[in-house]
C-alpha cells in the first residue's frame, strides 16, 4: 500500500481576469498567476526551488519569472497536466529534490496572444488515421463515443443536457463565472448543434486566463507560517490509454479515468463515499457522466439519471463542478488548473459557492480526448480514517 502522499498546497491563485484578455500574452498570464499564488502563500520568489508547467516550455516560464529551479517538470498530457505535476511535485519534495514547487498555467486560448499553434503531423498516427476524416478539434473527436454510450445505457439527450443545466446552477452563484444566467434543458436542446449529439451549451467555453499553486511538504505546511490553511494532498494517480480516441478499448468508459482514480483512492485510503466535493473536467457534457461511473461514484449507466435528478447541484449529495465548470466558468484549453483551484477554495472554505464542511475534495482531470487522466484527492487534514 502506498504511503500517505505527504504534500500540501499552501498557495493558490487565478489571474485577476478570466475570459477575454487581449492585453496579456499566454506567458504573462502564467507569470501573473505565479506571482499571485506565491503571494497567497506569503512567500517570495526566493522560496521557490521547483517549477512545473504545461502549455509553454518550463524553461521559458522559469526564465520569465526569474527562477533558478533545481526541479523541473514539463509533463504534458493535455488539460489535466497540472494534476500530474502536483503528484510529481509531492514525490519530488518527499525525496528531497526540492522544497517548494510552483505549478503554473496561462493560456490565451480565446485571444491567441503568444499562443503556440496546433499542428498535427500527417505522419503521426492521428495524422494518418483520424485527421483525413475531418477530425481536427476537440468537438470533432471527444464526443465520438456518446451515441454508443446512449445505445448501451439508454442515456437520453435530456439527461445529457441536464449536465449543463446543473453546472449553470452553480455558476449562477459565482461572480467570476463567464455564463451565469440560469438555463433549462429546453434551452440546451435548442442551442446550435456543434457535433451531433453535442449542442453548443454542452460544449465548453473558450477563454483566456491563468492559475497557479504552490506546493510544499505536509510537515512544513503544518508548522510553517502560511497565510491560508494548508490543503493536503491525500492521494493522486495518473494514467494514459491512447493518443487516438478512435482506438479506445471501449468508447463508453475511460480506462485512464479508472486507473488514475483507483490509484488515488488507494493512496488516500478513501472510497467514493468519503468524497464531500468533486471537480470533474468537463470539456463536454458527457465527461462528468463517464467520470462518475469510471471513478466509482455511481454504477454503470446511472450517471445521466444521477445528474438529471439533481444530486450534483447545490444541496445535492455530491456537489460537483461548483465553479460552474468548463461549461460555464472558464475553459482556457488546459482547464485542469481551474479544477484544482476550485477544489482548494472549497477545502479552505473560501469558494464563491461554498459547500458546507468540505473535508475531502476530489479532482478528476482528463488529458486530451480520453487519452490520459490525472486524479488528485485533497483534504483539510493530512489523513482520514476512510
Amino acid at each position, binding site marked *: 500500500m502506498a504511503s500517505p502522499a505527504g504534500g500540501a498546497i499552501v498557495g493558490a491563485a487565478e489571474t485577476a481576469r478570466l475570459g477575454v484578455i487581449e492585453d496579456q500574452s499566454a506567458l504573462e498570464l502564467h507569470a501573473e498567476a505565479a506571482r499571485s499564488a506565491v503571494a497567497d502563500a506569503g512567500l517570495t520568489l526566493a522560496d521557490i526551488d521547483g517549477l512545473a508547467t504545461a502549455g509553454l516550455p518550463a524553461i521559458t516560464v522559469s526564465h520569465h519569472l526569474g527562477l533558478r529551479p533545481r526541479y523541473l517538470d514539463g509533463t504534458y498530457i493535455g488539460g489535466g497536466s497540472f494534476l500530474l505535476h502536483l503528484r510529481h511535485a509531492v514525490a519530488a519534495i518527499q525525496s528531497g529534490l526540492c522544497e517548494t514547487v510552483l505549478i503554473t498555467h496561462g493560456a490565451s486560448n480565446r485571444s491567441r496572444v503568444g499562443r503556440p499553434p496546433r499542428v*498535427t*503531423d*500527417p*505522419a503521426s*498516427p492521428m*495524422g*494518418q*488515421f*483520424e*485527421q*483525413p*476524416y*475531418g*477530425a*481536427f*478539434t476537440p*468537438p*470533432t*473527436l471527444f*464526443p*465520438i*463515443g*456518446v*451515441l*454508443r454510450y446512449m*445505445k448501451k445505457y439508454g442515456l437520453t439527450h435530456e439527461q445529457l443536457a441536464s449536465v449543463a443545466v446543473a453546472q449553470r446552477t452553480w455558476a449562477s452563484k459565482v461572480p467570476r463565472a463567464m455564463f451565469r444566467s440560469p438555463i433549462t434543458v429546453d434551452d440546451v436542446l435548442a442551442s*446550435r*448543434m*456543434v*457535433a*451531433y*449529439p*453535442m449542442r453548443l451549451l454542452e460544449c465548453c467555453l473558450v477563454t483566456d486566463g491563468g492559475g497557479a499553486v504552490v506546493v510544499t511538504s505536509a510537515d512544513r505546511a503544518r508548522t510553517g507560517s502560511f497565510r491560508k490553511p494548508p490543503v493536503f494532498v491525500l492521494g493522486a494517480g495518473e494514467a494514459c490509454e491512447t493518443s*487516438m480516441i*478512435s*482506438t479506445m478499448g471501449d*468508447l463508453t468508459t475511460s480506462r485512464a479515468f479508472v486507473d488514475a482514480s483507483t490509484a488515488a483512492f488507494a493512496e488516500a485510503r478513501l472510497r467514493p463515499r468519503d468524497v464531500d466535493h468533486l471537480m470533474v473536467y468537463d470539456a463536454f457534457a458527457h465527461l462528468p457522466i463517464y467520470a462518475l461511473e469510471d471513478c466509482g461514484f455511481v454504477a454503470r449507466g446511472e450517471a445521466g439519471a444521477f445528474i438529471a435528478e439533481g444530486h450534483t447541484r447545490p444541496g445535492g449529495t455530491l456537489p460537483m463542478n461548483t465553479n460552474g465548470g468548463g461549461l460555464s466558468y472558464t475553459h482556457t484549453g488546459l482547464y485542469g488548473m481551474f479544477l484544482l483551484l476550485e477544489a482548494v477554495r472549497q477545502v479552505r472554505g473560501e469558494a464563491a459557492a461554498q459547500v458546507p464542511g468540505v473535508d475531502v475534495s476530489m479532482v478528476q482531470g482528463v488529458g486530451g480526448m480520453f487519452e490520459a487522466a490525472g486524479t488528485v484527492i485533497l483534504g483539510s487534514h493530512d489523513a482520514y480514517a476512510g
Partner: protein
Amino acid sequence: MTSRAAKPAPAPTPETAEYWRAAERGELRLPYCAGCDAYVFYPRGACPTCWSTELTWTTLSGRGRLHSYLISHIAAPGFEQDVPYAIAIVELEEGPRLMSSVRGIAQTPEALVLDMPLVVDFEPRGDVTLPVFRPAPVDARG
C-alpha cells in the same frame, strides 16, 4: 476570403506503408498476430498485446458495422463543402475499430443507425487512397 485548403492527406511511415499501398489496390489490410489471434490497428512493428514482431499482413473482409459516430457541423480545413458530415467509428468484422467516413447515405441521425452493416470503399486523397465505408448492399447483409 482565403483560398480553400485541401483536405488533409495521410503521410505513410515505413510501418504503415503496406496499409496505404493495399488501399490503393482496393484492399483493406492489417497486420495479424497469430499468437493473439488478433489484428493490429493501426499497423505497427509489434503486437501491442504480446510484443511479437511475427506479424502477417492479411487482407480483411471489408465488412463492418457502424459502432459510433458524431456529425460535425464545423468544418475541418478542406471540409467546408461537406458540413454537416459524419465522423464514424467502424467495427470491422475481424474485430478492430477504426475511424472513417460513411459515404452514400444522408449524414443525419435518422439515416445513420448504430450497428448498421457497412462495407469498405476507397477514395483518392492527395497522393494516397483512403478507406471509407458505405452501407452494405441488402443481399450482402449477414
